């Protein structure tokens, strides 16, 4: 916000980070953004997780870009982020002053051929990909009924209630996971954010829940300390070869894969597993990405890539990002491209499986 009145502040920042600026300017392959205003479009409202993520990066980005432009976050919410993404698709590169932040909720409708999607990820130029993880947890008594290694057989007969934002959203990943484990989970739809889901769990109305890593750390850890909630598994993280390994933020927690292996009837191969893994890969390890619009020249992409890389090289980055983003890879350059490819290029079989599953299990018809 506050496009023009921020300039005095931007000036002050420019003074303080003059060193950084001169270093990056020396490259010569970069575009100069001095005196300009970079608009960072978030296709969600001011109140969501993407807003937090962009608000975290915006002041840092302003410092890191050559010429120290003002970076403002603007919001264009609607239709579960497809409206903002469609609008971004219409934009063409002008002078590098427009960037777009997508999220898992932008990726999933794209993958599921939602009729509202009129955007194409391959037209855009990724400059940052931020990962995250997720943790599923249970009330203490139900957790006590789990078998060896988190085997879900002991709770297979329970009636589970889960506060959900919608089966076609990111919730698809936990919902499918629980079904694979043979749990009888009834999603209660219509909650407005994962925080409401946690509240439902705290009130004892829901008895299974998951949170993304940063909200688990801040919201559920106190419940774990109080003994009312016990973490069951994390969804895990991907290693360089695309294998699911333990989440670096929760190294002591088994992954869903381990639980699945310990539970009879849950298979870590085959159509269903591949579909789950594909959508997990699309939703978590590269959940939020920053794009330049179609037609951006190489210099502009380099400029933003280097700026995001420079942010991560800050001495205090680990400290300031830990609480806000969790210990997850913030990928730039080739790594970001690879992450985007794996997040948006889901095999057709996996898509078909999920589209079919959504129709049969939840009656959701995407056409």
């Amino acid at each position, binding site marked *: *916000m*506050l*496009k*023009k*009145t*921020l300039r005095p*502040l931007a000036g002050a920042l420019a003074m303080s980070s003059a060193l950084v600026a001169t270093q990056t300017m020396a490259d010569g392959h970069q575009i100069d953004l001095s005196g300009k205003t970079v608009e960072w479009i978030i296709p969600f*409202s*001011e*109140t*969501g997780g993407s*807003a*937090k993520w962009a*608000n*975290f990066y*915006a*002041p840092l980005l302003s410092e890191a870009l050559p010429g120290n432009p003002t970076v*403002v*976050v*603007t919001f*264009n919410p*609607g*239709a579960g982020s497809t*409206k903002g993404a469609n609008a971004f698709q219409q934009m063409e590169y002008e002078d590098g002053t427009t960037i777009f932040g997508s999220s898992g909720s932008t990726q999933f409708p794209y993958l599921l051929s939602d*009729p*509202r999607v009129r955007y194409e990820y391959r037209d855009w130029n990724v400059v940052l990909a931020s990962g995250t993880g997720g943790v599923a947890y249970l009330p203490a008594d139900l957790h006590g009924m789990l078998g060896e290694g988190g085997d879900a057989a002991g709770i297979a007969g329970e*009636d589970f*209630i889960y506060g959900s934002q*919608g089966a*076609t959203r990111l919730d698809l990943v936990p919902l499918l996971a629980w079904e694979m484990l043979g749990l009888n989970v*009834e999603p*209660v*739809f*219509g*909650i407005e*954010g994962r*925080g*409401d889901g*946690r*509240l*439902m769990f*705290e*009130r*004892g*109305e829901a008895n299974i829940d998951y949170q993304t890593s940063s*909200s688990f750390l*801040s*919201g559920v*850890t*106190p*419940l774990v300390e109080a003994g009312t909630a016990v973490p069951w598994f994390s969804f895990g993280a991907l290693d360089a070869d695309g294998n699911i390994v333990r989440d670096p933020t929760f190294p002591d927690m088994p992954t869903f894969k381990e639980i699945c292996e310990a539970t009879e009837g849950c298979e870590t191969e085959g159509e269903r597993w591949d579909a789950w893994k594909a959508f997990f890969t699309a939703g978590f390890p590269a959940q939020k990405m920053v794009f330049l619009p179609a037609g951006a020249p190489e210099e502009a992409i380099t400029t933003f890539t280097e700026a995001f890389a420079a942010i991560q090289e800050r001495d205090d980055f680990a*400290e*300031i990002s830990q*609480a*806000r983003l969790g210990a997850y890879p913030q990928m730039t350059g080739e790594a970001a491209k690879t992450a985007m490819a794996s997040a948006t290029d889901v095999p057709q079989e996996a898509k078909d499986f999920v589209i079919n599953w959504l129709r049969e299990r*939840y*009656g*959701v*018809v995407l056409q």
Partner: protein
Amino acid sequence: MEVFATALPALNDAFAMILQPHVLGFLVLGVVMGLCIGVFPGLGGIAGLSLLLPFMFGMEPVTGLALMIGMVAVVPTSDTFASVLMGIPGSSASQATVLDGFPMAKKGLAARALSAAFAASLFGGLVGAAFLTVFILAARPIVLLFQTPELLMITIFGLSMVGILAGRVALKGLVAACLGILVGTIGEGASSGALRMSTYDMPYLADGLKLVIVGLGIFAIPEIVALLRRDKAISDRAPLGGGWLEGVKDWWSNKWLSVRCSLIGVVVGVIPGLGGSVVDWIAYGHAVQTARDKSEFGSGDVRGVIGPESSNNAKEGGGLVPTLLFGIPGSGSMAIFISAVALLGTGSIEVGPSMLKNNLDFTYAIVWLLALANVVGTIICIAASGGIARLTEIRFALLAPFLFMIIAFAAFQSRQEIWDLVALFGIGLLGIMMRRFDWSRPAFLIGFVLAAPAERYTNQAYQIAASRFRRGFEEGIDYIFSPIVIVLIIITLLSVVIGLRQARNIQAEGTVVSGTKRAPVLFLLAVTAYIALAYWNAAVIPDFARMDRVFPVFVATVALIGCVLLLIQMMRSDETAPIFADREAEDAEDNVHSLWSTLGWFAGLLVASALVGFILALAGFLLLFIRIRAGKKWGYAVIYTACGIAFICTMAWTLNRDFPPGLLQSYVDLPWPLT
């Protein structure tokens, strides 16, 4: 006792933190900024906090908090100006204030109404803070007692306020409320995403209408149009002297009402999931129910101002509980507040369940900064109220274009599309008709506001209860009929019975004489047609998405029965019956201009905006309106237009907003603000 042993030192630390000169300075700065933004209808805490967000990074926590809280706290104070002076609900917090505040302004009592409102606001804020200081220590388990059935019952209790505000013909009020609910269900259903009264070809409707647009359309536009047609000032008599002192005295003689409404505000504000949208209505209903002489409500009873205003500032304090203790924002501005707190300092304050344990001193600092901001804000507002109240003495034709400009700008903030203006115009037309035929607009708005929570909690409670019943009958019953639910049911029943018995005496929008039969019948038929369409549209939702079908079908059925009964009544009654109320007949002598020519001006602004973009259209509109309608000289009109455009551009520039583009802009690239 142990609790107090930790609470008292924390409270002490909190005051040591707050009472530093630079902290107080930032608080005052925040308050002034908040007042400036809150004065404009439709702009509130969200716009203000977004403005501050970029400055929060690394700021010293307590200073940053002072700045932000100063801003958030006074929005419900300053939006009283628009509610009382113009009849425009400045935000959802002051919808009910309009009912009695605006009639007072019309009677020349604007300054008195304002200062009573501000005194009540201040008091409510302080009561809220005092209550929270103790309550926050025990709040967590209590808040967790409010499960979905309890939330549903509170929503229903809020809806029962329709009974009091239904107007002379209770059935009309009921149908109006149902119509409001149906308008509130437009868009994607929360459960299965089925579309109601919308298609993906018109994505605007798929997201549903926003409260800003409906509130402005249903209250503000009809008032502005009505005043314009009379072509006088808002206040129809000279202001009475000593206004502001009178208002404070009014508040003092109703201090117990103010206490009770403040407590209502805190308690309802504490419960996450409802936010503040019902608080002012419940407080208004309470003020009416407990008053002995109810005849003046709706035509300028100061108690109808004191009640809601006491509650809406107290609510802000209450709303801190879900925000701070659960990390769940009670409102949009609180959501930004949470992310802004994370930017402060080294990010050591983490809003959420650990807040009380780790940051009790900060929690208290926040609570008392809020109280202090209320004090500062109120003093500034009372000081300014005498002067600002003079706005009601200006000839309205000179004020109206300016107001329209601001309302259109505020509406456009909803989705930043030209459709925002179309929706505003459409809802405005409905509001004009409802005002004309004496259909309760408050009932409509309550229905609209509570449509989403009522549907959501009904579906969720049904689903969860079904699961409980599968486990055992007793467990299911225990879940649905908890002690809190039973108490709420009793309160609701009492309120409905008392409300209906008294509704005849309470004319929330003044009395209206009856005219001919034809126009009221036509309007009823139009309403019935829409409801029937909504019924059909919901009924065809396929089975797999039945959760999105049940609620609108149920409400539409109730409404249709109401419509049929009304039609029967209309056939049987003669022309003078209150059911045929028609303001056209009453205002015929006062109205200088016809409805359609007045509306034509605004339709013109809308069409021109779609063609050449908002700013160009606005310039033409202001110029022509002042020249032709207000009859001023060209020179005057040019200066007026220049001031108006400069003002709106400054505001958009500060808030970093764009204006609606038109057809022209898709062919030609124009510089800001013409884009």
